[in-house]
């Protein structure tokens, strides 16, 4: 078996590791395998772009509005401590 063959992984495995790949939470060997897969698989590149969009969507949703009456009650609570 050649070196290239040992690095080949199926789409299911590559997709399953995409978020960990973006987080650098997998081993350098697995990182390399995902990169290798992405180099020839257009569909998984689409999955990767969507994973990036989803992460950006979540990261920008952190600051919700606080209803004024809740804010007022919490401020009063803090003042009463």
């Amino acid at each position, binding site marked *: 078996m050649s070196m290239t063959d040992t690095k080949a992984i199926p789409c*299911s495995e590559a*997709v*399953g590791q995409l*978020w*960990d790949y973006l*987080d650098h*939470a997998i081993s350098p060997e697995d990182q390399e395998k995902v990169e290798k897969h992405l180099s020839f698989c257009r*569909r998984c590149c*689409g*999955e990767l*772009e*969507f994973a990036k*969009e*989803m*992460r950006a*969507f*979540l*990261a920008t*949703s*952190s*600051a*919700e*509005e*606080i209803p004024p009456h*809740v*804010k007022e*009650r*919490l*401020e009063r*609570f*803090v*003042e009463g*401590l």
Partner: protein
Amino acid sequence: MRRSVIEMSEVGIQDRTKEAFQELVIAELPALYSLARRLVRDGAEDLVQEALLQAFRAFGTLKDEAAAGRWLKTILVNVFRDQLRKRSRTVDERPMGDLSDFSLYRTLVDEDPFPYSDTLHADFLRVFDSEDLREVLIRLPDIYRVPLVLRYIDGFATKEIARLMEAPLGTTLARLHRGRRLFEREMWVYAQEAGLLTKER
């Protein structure tokens, strides 16, 4: 009776501490309340109050005021974890069906909910407002929702989440992995149930 100089100066210090605490936390209330609402379906305000109470008691341990936001969120997650533990002694690891084959990306390509869109996947995300997102998150079991919220919305490191939830790192990584799949499947299910895909866009 007249208070001694020492007593009066202690009162002065306490007042100043209280003022400093108030100033610091009031700016963080929206972020704290938002996090609480992503952790619990009901009782977010109570959770914030309990966290504020504990934070006030521990205010002296805050070394870096610039890190107050993260410090407060950490306290809130600790309070939530303790409440969770009191509520149920067993971890809810019930199966949520077979997720191994589910891909939201592929589902959107196959189902094509916006046939005239050139940016199908981005458009799908755009139909979710903050309430829709919260509803999807709140549908997930705690053990999957909490790591997901802390990691991808509030930006905690995975190691820190493992420490906060008192779970091994490997378990936390596995829950994040499964949680992402569950979250994407629930987004798809919710979008259909709530009519997000048929709204005028």
